[in-house]
């Protein structure tokens, strides 16, 4: 069945029937090419998506102050809520099971000067735990540490672009800058994947910020890092309990939605993951649609090919070809063509994806499209197998037709 003669016979047939060979080969190659390209593009889209939303830590709750809208316990509505240092310790003591680290954030815009250069930047008063919440990466020097916070030092960590703006390439570590009238020493430079805005910020100890502002104990926002093992449901439970606790402490009506706000990254993360899941689902459906279209295409061609060869089959049978021989020759031929063209299409598709790389990133949000080699080979084999089945059925029928009937076919 697999003798050299059989193959020679098959190659002769392939060579002499170029249109037929081209049609079936082209269908398979194109099907696989489109499948791989689509699937890879989908993965590229997911890459971009993850890049957008994968920046900040996922086990973080942000608490923002707001204004009340409902009078409660003798307080009028439209009262501004403020957080203070005691809130930090209270939360930490009330939810020890949940909270890993809690830190305040005080946002102030300030004019920052070094030598001749001067610019407005956002300064953020933080404590040492903030670095993990924002996934800030220290390039040189260090972050704000516990000693800075406790001793209210005048140390600052500046963003990469702040250094670029003010120091013009010279090193900034150990230099003194003027932040809104107070002199700070640069102890570190950071970068952040969150984008240019986040690299134009300056971190200082929040206690220092409070000292500058007449030793106030007010803080802007509260950032709570909860234990990652809590998961999504734990985070949601913490959010509920925290809301109840804070409303009670700040005398806010339980029905008031505006006293303060909690941004739960876990919730957003879940939404993002759901969105990415839907994206993945659509990509998969489209890709399998392509494969099914390819299977239907190759099936049609196989039926046509066998139909076209009915007379030839009759001749071969009249001069002594057994049904097995007829079927095996037709099948080997079709499987050979689909295998060669299928894998060519596959390689072409993978090469195309590699070539695309980051070219479509800026305009089409497709980063590094790729397909795992397993999926690519699976799809190719699927097409080959179904091409074989689609060829086998009509080939078997043709081999069963009596030779005289087949010979009458014109």
């Amino acid at each position, binding site marked *: 069945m697999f003798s050299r*003669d059989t193959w*020679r*016979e098959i190659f*002769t*047939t392939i060579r*002499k*029937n170029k249109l037929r060979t081209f049609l079936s080969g082209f269908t398979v190659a194109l099907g696989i090419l489109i499948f791989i390209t689509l699937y890879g593009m989908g993965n590229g889209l997911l890459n971009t998506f993850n890049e957008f939303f994968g920046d900040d830590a996922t086990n973080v709750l942000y608490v923002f102050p707001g204004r009340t809208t409902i009078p409660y316990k003798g307080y009028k509505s439209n009262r501004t809520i403020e957080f203070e240092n005691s809130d930090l310790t209270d939360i930490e003591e009330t939810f020890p099971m949940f909270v890993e680290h809690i830190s305040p954030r005080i946002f102030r815009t300030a004019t920052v000067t070094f030598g001749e250069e001067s610019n407005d930047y956002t300064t953020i008063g933080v404590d040492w735990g903030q670095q993990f919440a924002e996934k800030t990466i220290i390039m040189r020097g260090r972050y704000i540490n516990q000693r800075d916070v406790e001793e209210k030092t005048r140390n600052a960590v500046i963003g990469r672009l702040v250094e670029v703006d003010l120091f013009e390439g010279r090193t900034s570590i150990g230099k003194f800058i003027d932040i809104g009238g107070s002199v700070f020493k640069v102890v570190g430079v950071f970068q952040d994947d969150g984008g240019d805005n986040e690299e134009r910020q300056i971190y200082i100890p929040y206690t220092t910020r409070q000292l500058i502002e007449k030793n106030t104990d007010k803080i802007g926002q509260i950032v709570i890092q909860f234990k990652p093992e809590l998961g999504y449901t734990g985070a949601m439970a913490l959010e509920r309990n925290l809301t109840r606790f804070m409303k009670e402490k700040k005398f806010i009506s339980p029905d008031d939605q505006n006293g303060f706000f909690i941004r739960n990254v876990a919730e957003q993360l879940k939404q993002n993951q759901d969105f990415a899941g839907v994206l993945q689902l659509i990509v998969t459906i489209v890709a399998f649609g392509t494969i099914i279209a390819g299977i239907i295409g190759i099936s049609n061609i196989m039926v046509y090919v066998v139909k076209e060869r009915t*007379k*030839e089959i*009759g*001749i*071969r*049978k*009249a*001069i*002594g*070809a*057994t*049904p*097995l*021989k007829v079927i095996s020759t037709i099948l080997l031929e079709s499987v050979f063509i689909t295998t060669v063209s299928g894998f060519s299409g596959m390689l072409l598709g993978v090469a195309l994806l590699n070539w695309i790389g980051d070219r479509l990133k800026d305009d089409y949000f497709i980063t590094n499209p790729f397909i795992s080699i397993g999926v690519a080979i699976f799809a190719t084999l699927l097409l080959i197998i179904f091409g074989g089945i689609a060829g086998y059925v009509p080939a078997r029928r043709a*081999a*069963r037709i*009596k*030779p*005289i009937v087949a*010979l009458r076919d014109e």
Partner: protein
Amino acid sequence: MIEIKDLHKSYQMGSNSLHVLKGINFNVKEGELVAIMGSSGSGKSTLLNILGMLDVADSGEYYLDGIPIKNLNETKAANYRNKFLGFIFQSFNLINYKTALENVALPLYYQGVGRKERQEKSMRYLEQVGLKEWSHHLPSELSGGQKQRVAVARAMVAEPKVLLADELTGALDSKTSYEVMDLIQQINDQGNTILVVTHEDDIAHMCKRIVHLRDGVIVEDKKIEQVRASEYVQ
């Protein structure tokens, strides 16, 4: 060589049944050249197809070289056809994408003969039908007579016991017909058994025996004085 007893065959045409062969009894000895004649619808092609195992009879006995031909599955029939029979068709039935040589070699391929021997033997038979120079031409590059001679070579190459020809001159002009018949007579002279189905009188008279079929029965079976086709060929 061929022995047929009480052969019946009918075709189902919707609800009607068409009784084509109504009890044929018929023997052919080795080396005979027999013409089967009859108008269209007389059952002559059906008889030939059954003899060639391309079709199956409803009842009756058929012995080919002493072997009973019955209950054949497709594989067995294919092997018998390959070993015992050579076919020549009215419409030549060459495979159009294969050269003359490849067409002739095909029965040997299905016998499992090696490639080299296949080509040598096929070339020898092509030479015998006078087409050695045309061996690498496609059927589309050959004339009708040349195509039929390729078909004759293909039928002969496996050295079958019986050669079956169905209206082999039907698609040819009379001059070419006589050339092909001359070839058939030469092959017969070498001792081969040949059955020719035809409705042309002159072709039938170039055989040695004429069997007349009418409405599914043999009405006449006579030996005749053979007319040599070479008389008409320059």
